[in-house]
């Protein structure tokens, strides 16, 4: 209880509140731009956060991380273009609703389900982190290694049908991590006598290159898209009422999000996929899935929005980032 109160005390600071507000609104705006997404925004803002008070910088990034999941559903619903792959399944039911002229209803359902998924996940973070934190001191280097290995294995296993190439790329990731001066015997690895490689690859530089620059280069070579928005009706506030009619779908979806978020290397896409499949199997009207089903939209949005807070559980308790975005957060903790 003391921890929760001290957390609220920190949140009440004006600079933290401002960072949260800017992060949350900015996250929705960034998420709504197809092809940009939170990874790019966080990668760009990462160097800027180093000059801030760590709690302010972290709050800003967490605001973006949490809210961008909903932001990404906006283009998925309105123009059938998911912000990133995370919202691919949102297009299945969101866009058919828009075509029927129910764009506002779909958006309302998306943010209601996102809200529920996010809150459920934060509650899990509050109650599960202390439990894991008690176990964390028992974790030595071997246990941390095994947890990281579990993450690597899951990354490979999650890519069904492409496991060989996933293993190869996981190996490439390990190789990049080994470049430079190794800490045990102080010998150089794969530096090719280049002094600038002696320090290895800096995490922030790699993150900027992988997420921000690569995406920028890709956007520079793509043609401009002409987008025509269809007319929309429905209330922006009817989502919560509809959500209340499907408590089981929403609950299962949020649970999938929390579990998948906690497991390193799995993340939003798998959570959304499993939640959607499960909702369709349990639904009384499975044929409506993919044709504008409110249950389908709730299943996908509640699941992917439950992941960010849950992904913070292994990061905060064990120091293991579950995915790229939490790895970026980890670099803020290091500063």
């Amino acid at each position, binding site marked *: 209880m003391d921890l929760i109160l001290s957390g609220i005390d920190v949140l009440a600071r004006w600079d933290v509140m401002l960072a949260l507000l800017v992060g949350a609104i900015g996250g929705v705006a960034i998420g709504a731009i197809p092809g940009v997404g939170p990874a790019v925004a966080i990668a760009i803002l990462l160097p*800027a956060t180093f*000059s801030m008070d760590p709690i302010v910088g972290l709050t800003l990034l967490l605001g973006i991380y949490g809210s961008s999941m909903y932001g990404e559903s906006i283009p998925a619903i309105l123009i059938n273009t998911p912000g990133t792959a995370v919202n691919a399944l949102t297009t299945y039911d969101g866009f058919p609703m828009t075509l029927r002229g129910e764009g506002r209803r779909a958006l309302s359902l998306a943010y209601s389900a996102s809200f529920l998924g996010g809150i459920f996940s934060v509650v899990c973070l509050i109650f599960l982190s202390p439990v894991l934190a008690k176990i964390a001191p028992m974790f030595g280097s071997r246990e941390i290694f095994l947890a990281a290995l579990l993450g690597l294995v899951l990354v490979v296993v999650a890519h069904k049908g492409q496991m060989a190439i996933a293993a190869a790329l996981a*190996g490439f*990731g*390990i*190789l990049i991590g080994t470049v430079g001066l190794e800490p045990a015997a102080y010998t150089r690895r794969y530096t090719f006598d280049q002094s600038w490689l002696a320090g290895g690859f800096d995490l922030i530089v790699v993150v900027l290159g992988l997420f921000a620059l690569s995406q920028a*280069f890709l956007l520079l*070579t793509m043609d401009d898209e002409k987008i025509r928005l269809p007319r929309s009706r429905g209330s922006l506030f009817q989502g919560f009422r509809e959500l209340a009619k499907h408590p089981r779908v929403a609950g299962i979806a949020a649970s999938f999000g929390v579990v998948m978020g906690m497991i390193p290397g799995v993340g939003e896409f798998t959570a959304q996929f499993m939640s959607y499949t499960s909702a369709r199997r349990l639904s009384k009207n499975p044929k409506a899935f993919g044709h504008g089903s409110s249950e389908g939209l709730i299943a996908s949005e509640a699941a992917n929005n439950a992941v960010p807070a849950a992904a913070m559980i292994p990061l905060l308790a064990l120091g293991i980032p579950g995915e790229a975005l939490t790895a970026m957060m980890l670099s803020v903790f290091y500063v």
Partner: protein
Amino acid sequence: MDNSELLQVKTKTSGQVVFVVAGLALSLFLLSQIGSQTEWSERARNIGSQPRLWPAIALITMVLGFALHFWRMRRRRPNALDWVEARRWVEPLEYLVWFLIYVAAVPRLGFMPMSILFACALTYRLGYRQKPALAIAGAFAIAMVVLFKGLLGVNIPGAQIYEYLPDSIRTFFLVYL
């Protein structure tokens, strides 16, 4: 329908064979260098602390992964669409060169002047050649510099060229521009 559109319509796996072979070749090259690029330490307490262990695990995984994926591919000989896709991936490298020039020029010629020049030149290169587009690019560059260097205090080195400015304005340029 041009080749790139055909590529999107016909297959989602175009270009794979080119990248898998390139990945396999790179992995084999790096594995062949393991003797000279890593050391086998006699002082290591156990196998886990051997400097060569993790690069070896990573590279063997890469070689096996790429080789297995290549072996399981339905089509192992690249066709025209594979090369179209590969070219699409190479095209953005032009902008990597632009970016490297920008990064090299900033500590010499200044963050603000180079950002304005870079944004306007890139906008022109992309085909937006009307005055309003160039003005927006310039304004964006100024806003970016003010936000990142002025307000957020991101540590970007002051330019060498600013050393030649009069004393009265030099510090301002070094700190904010």
